[in-house]
């Protein structure tokens, strides 16, 4: 199967509420991540790396930053004469009823789906960070003769609503599907990357409209477990789901392990993002940087340890940044000190200030705030 035969659909606002601090001014898809990316970069790159040439990005609210980031889709090679990137803002008619749920969102873009000539659809949220081989996924789908294939991970269920948990037979066919079960055990939970024939998706949505279904996970996925061949496809590489501020912090920090970085930024399937044309990072005399990820455009004259610096961050002499995430154009002035802080874009920490949080409760500093 070639990617040309697949249309990608990305839910950029899914689970916005779980990191409300970061999504207050943006969508989940445009949340900054790992020094130079936005979460949507992983989803979009996975799709284009498999040859997908048409991607619809569903938006619901606060999508200015998302539009600014994806632009015409050029960085992902999705700025095309034919197909390419489509931003799909909410279509609030009576029938569509807003984008409260994934199902409502899909109802709102029925026109986009039915006008697409591709035979398959790939649905994806943005809050899971992984480098997925979609070619392998589609081959698996064909080999299993599946109707729906759901990418899952084995581990502790994320603390989110509507988490689909699969119980599968030896062949990985789903036999029972539960939604957000209460359990501390390792389970096979869905990463909300779902593959099926476009015609099937259309039929399921039309059924949902006529039967007045409201819930994608319960009515479409769980409700069809006996009627359709639903298969699980295990994501075996590095995959992490952002489910809270704490996990956002933890997932960023996990990338300080080069093995995780290698897996996520696989050279065969690169992750693309918007280019900013910064110079390479400059390390001044007396700078002291340990175990950190640093983007272009940074100027570091102080101490940085176990931290993630985004593009254009400045750390002045005598300043100390430890266990922290400083987003783009942040400024840490002389002798200021940060520990377990998540500083949003363009934050200024004036001289001699000290801020300290805890690993399970990092201090968040909002965009453009001066401390």
């Amino acid at each position: 199967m070639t990617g040309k035969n697949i249309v990608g659909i990305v839910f950029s606002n899914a689970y916005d509420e779980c990191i409300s601090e970061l999504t207050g001014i943006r969508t989940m898809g445009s949340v900054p991540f790992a020094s130079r990316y936005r979460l949507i970069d992983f989803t979009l790159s996975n799709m284009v790396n498999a040859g997908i040439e048409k991607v619809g990005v569903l938006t619901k609210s606060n999508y200015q930053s998302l539009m600014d980031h994806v632009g015409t889709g050029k960085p992902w090679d999705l700025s095309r004469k034919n197909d390419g990137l489509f931003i799909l803002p909410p279509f609030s008619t009576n029938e569509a009823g807003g984008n409260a749920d994934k199902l409502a969102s899909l109802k709102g873009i029925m026109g986009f789906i039915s006008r697409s000539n591709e035979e398959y659809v790939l649905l994806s949220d943005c809050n899971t960070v992984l480098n997925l081989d979609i070619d392998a996924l589609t081959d698996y789908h064909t080999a299993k003769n599946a109707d729906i294939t759901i990418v899952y991970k084995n581990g502790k269920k994320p603390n989110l609503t509507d988490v689909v948990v699969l119980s599968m037979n030896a062949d990985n066919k789903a036999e029972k599907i539960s939604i957000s079960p209460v359990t501390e055990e390792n389970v096979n939970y869905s990463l909300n990357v779902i593959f099926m024939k476009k015609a099937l998706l259309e039929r399921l949505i039309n059924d949902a409209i006529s039967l007045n279904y409201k819930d994608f996970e319960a009515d479409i996925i769980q409700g069809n477990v006996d009627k359709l061949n639903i298969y699980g496809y295990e994501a075996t590489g590095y995959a992490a789901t952002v489910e809270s501020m704490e996990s956002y912090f933890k997932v960023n920090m996990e990338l300080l392990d080069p093995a995780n970085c290698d897996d996520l930024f696989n050279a065969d399937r690169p992750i693309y993002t918007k280019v900013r044309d910064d110079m390479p990072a400059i390390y001044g005399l007396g700078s002291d940087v340990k175990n950190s990820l640093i983007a272009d455009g940074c100027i570091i004259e102080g101490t940085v340890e176990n931290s993630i610096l985004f593009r254009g961050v400045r750390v002045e002499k005598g300043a100390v940044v430890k266990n922290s995430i400083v987003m783009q154009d942040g400024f840490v002035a002389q002798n200021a000190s940060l520990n377990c802080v998540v500083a949003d874009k363009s934050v200024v920490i004036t001289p001699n200030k000290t801020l300290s949080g805890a690993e399970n409760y990092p201090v968040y500093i909002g965009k453009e705030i001066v401390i």
Partner: protein
Amino acid sequence: MARKQECIAMLLAGGQGSRLGILTKNIAKPAVPYGGKYRIIDFPLSNCVNSGITTVGVLTQYQPLELNDYIGNGQAWDLDRANGGVHILSPYQQIKGTEWYKGTANAIYQNINFIDRYDPEYVVILSGDHIYKMDYNKMLEYHKEKGAACTIAMLEVSWEEASRFGLMILNDDNSISEFEEKPKNPRSNKASMGVYVFTWSKLRQYLIDDEKDPNSSNDFGKNVIPKMHADGEKMFAYLFDGYWKDVGTIDSLWEANLDLLNPKVDLDLSDTSWRIYAKTPVSPPHYISANAKVQNSMISEGSRVYGDVDYSILFNDVVIEEGAEVKYSIVMPGTVVKKGAVVQYSMVAENAVIEAGAVVGATPEEMANRDDWGVAVVGAGVTVHEGAFVAPKAMVDEDVVKEDK
């Protein structure tokens, strides 16, 4: 027909840059990497777009493959335009036969048709050999104000260096009274930067006349400009005050790179009002490990540092393993410096491998005779094997093995 443009730029990028040796074995000089993520040509191209000149012809001839590929449709410099934009101009077959570009003036002569399509009043002639940030538009305004036929950008150099440059002796109104090409005893310290603004109608005629002259070597500096001067055309010098460096030699290229680490040098690439654009590689942020030591250096994305880096520039996707030492060096994309290897006072081109315990270059202090010292250069894709030594001033483009003593 293209829409009229007041001013277009022609960038001479065909030179081999033979003094850069193995660095230009497979690529034209303007495509030589510089400054951790750039290539030399990014400077004139970015200057053009920042100056509002959005039609640029790039004249290529020597090893154009990589340069053409790099420029692509010009999108990285915002030069993918519906009208104008960047155009690669290679020599082409004409009804009277095929000719290589014989000289700088001939290269422009062969592309008169390209320039005429835009019907410009003025043409800026640039070269792809220099690192500098300059507003060509200010120079153009000056050219118009003076009503000149030709304006040449000049820079005041130190008197000691002056004899290495093409110099101009000026009248009080900055019009040019005399030219001196690399004189032994300079009478002026005003050097030409190789940036020219011409009134197109004038230059067009001089190019046609120059082509007819069988004794001409069809060069701007040697033929066209002296002829214009001899004919009494209005020629002015435009004073540029800022960082400018010719990177035509290994030493000057190495120095120009390390200038970026000197806070006293007036070349700020972090200035967002005059960005230098480049094609950015697709690489993750760079990683500095817990045991790495990085001082006074510039590091680009995708690199990983586990060892020591001092006063050096690392391009993208470079790996410096634990215990390796890199100082006063430029390491280009994809190169790996393995455990315990030392790279000092060197330039290492793309995708080279410096194996464990190998030593590249030497510090000037180590040398018995200072004259034997120089920057060591390792060519693209070369492996310097375990324990091997690359001497200062050496240029290696084949794998180096340890010598048996």
